[in-house]
């Protein structure tokens, strides 16, 4: 065991997962490095081994097969913004990726896999994946598993520093008749949000017949609040629905964050504000 950091660049997922299973907890997987390097630079993270996964071909590429869009974990944000398959089948994700912080430099190197496994409360990708019912493929020495993104969020063993590798994200295509929106409370799109919300709505005769809404940057992890807003189904949008959303949201975020982006009480208020904004914006897309 070296006193200094070591480096490994496996060529296959089998090699990588076997290597990870034999390493101590100080090993980290690295691809674009946009999440890890700030922590390394400030001494908050001191990896014993960097496992570079950039050579793993199983983690590359965007494909549409069997009515599923598969996005390799090494896909960078810029490609999610610009790829025609993503824009056609999951335009919500393509749009949300534009709001990732750090500017083009980070969009060119930051990967969707890194964004997910960092499980950062303020990031912009997971809120959309939650309401798209996305699934992820996880590879470890024990084999390959496919789990929903919501299950992944509840399993802390899949975060940074784990012995598993997130290989791809699988999403069912969105119907063209759906309205969708991602709203982020931030002065510019270049940084952390103080609250955000993604929404997907379907209407018939102007009445809401299905509704999916998530809120991010308020709790320690983004939250799918769709079931709490089920009483909106069957209604045509009107201002009284604002009060229902505000009332429901007021009891959903007991664990609201307090940081430089805003304190917990304000964050709780902003959760409903952003949910209302995203639902209204999604409805407007249908009009």
């Amino acid at each position, binding site marked *: 065991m070296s006193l200094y950091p070591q480096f490994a660049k496996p060529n296959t997922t089998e090699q990588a997962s076997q290597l990870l299973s034999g390493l101590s907890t100080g090993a980290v997987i690295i691809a674009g490095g946009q999440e890890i390097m700030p922590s390394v630079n400030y001494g908050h993270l001191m990896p014993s081994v960097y496992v570079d996964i950039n050579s793993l071909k199983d983690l590359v590429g965007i494909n549409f097969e069997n009515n599923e869009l598969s996005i390799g974990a090494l896909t960078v944000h810029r490609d999610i913004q610009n790829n025609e398959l993503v824009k056609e089948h999951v335009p919500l994700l393509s749009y949300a990726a534009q709001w990732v912080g750090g500017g083009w*430099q980070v969009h060119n190197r930051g990967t969707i896999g890194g964004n997910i496994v960092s499980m950062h409360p303020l990031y912009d990708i997971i809120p959309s994946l939650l309401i798209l019912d996305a699934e992820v493929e996880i590879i470890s020495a024990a084999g390959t598993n496919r789990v929903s993104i919501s299950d992944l969020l509840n399993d802390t063993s899949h975060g940074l520093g784990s012995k598993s590798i997130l290989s791809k994200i699988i999403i069912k295509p969105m119907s063209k008749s759906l309205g969708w929106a991602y709203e982020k409370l931030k002065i510019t799109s270049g940084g952390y949000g103080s609250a955000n919300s993604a929404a997907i709505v379907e209407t018939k005769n102007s009445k809401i017949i299905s509704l999916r809404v998530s809120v991010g940057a308020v709790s320690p992890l983004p939250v799918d609040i769709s079931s709490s807003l089920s009483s909106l189904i069957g209604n045509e949008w009107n201002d009284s629905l604002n009060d229902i959303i505000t009332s429901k949201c007021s009891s959903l975020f007991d664990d609201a964050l307090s940081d430089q982006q805003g304190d917990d009480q304000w964050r709780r208020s902003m959760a409903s504000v952003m949910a209302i904004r995203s639902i209204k914006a999604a409805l407007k897309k249908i009009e």
Partner: protein
Amino acid sequence: MEDLLEDTVLIQLRINGKYHELEISPSVSLLDLLRDELNFKGTHMGCMTGHCGACTVMINGKTAKSCITLASTLSNVDITTIEGLSDEEGNLSPLQESFWNTAGFQCGYCAPGMLFLTKELLEDNPNPTDDEIKTALEGTLCRCTGYQSLIRAVKDAAENISASKS
């Protein structure tokens, strides 16, 4: 699988057109490699968190923040630093001339970020709107807050580069 572990990493980089083969520590950032090992001091150190953009370079023609890029993950890539924007005699490129002629910079510490983001913008979009310029420059902070001057310089660069191509 422990035979995969290395104490040092051998990488090959083409920096501003010149080939380099380097044996480096696994944990060195591209910024430290460029500044401390290879003496490309034009790549500025700012925040070390990826927020400010003063350390921007181009990797294979795309902008990247060198302070949050682990050098050992790069091999067989083309890197352009700000020194590579001018020619070998030190003559400024049309892009740099525009920033000079319009006083685009105040202190100039953010120059790597602003110049490379402008280069990336104008390669895809030769005639950007103000909003498109603002979006493109989001990844770099100007601590002098001279954003209006920067937008003016990008517009001038768009005209200057179009004229130099016609």
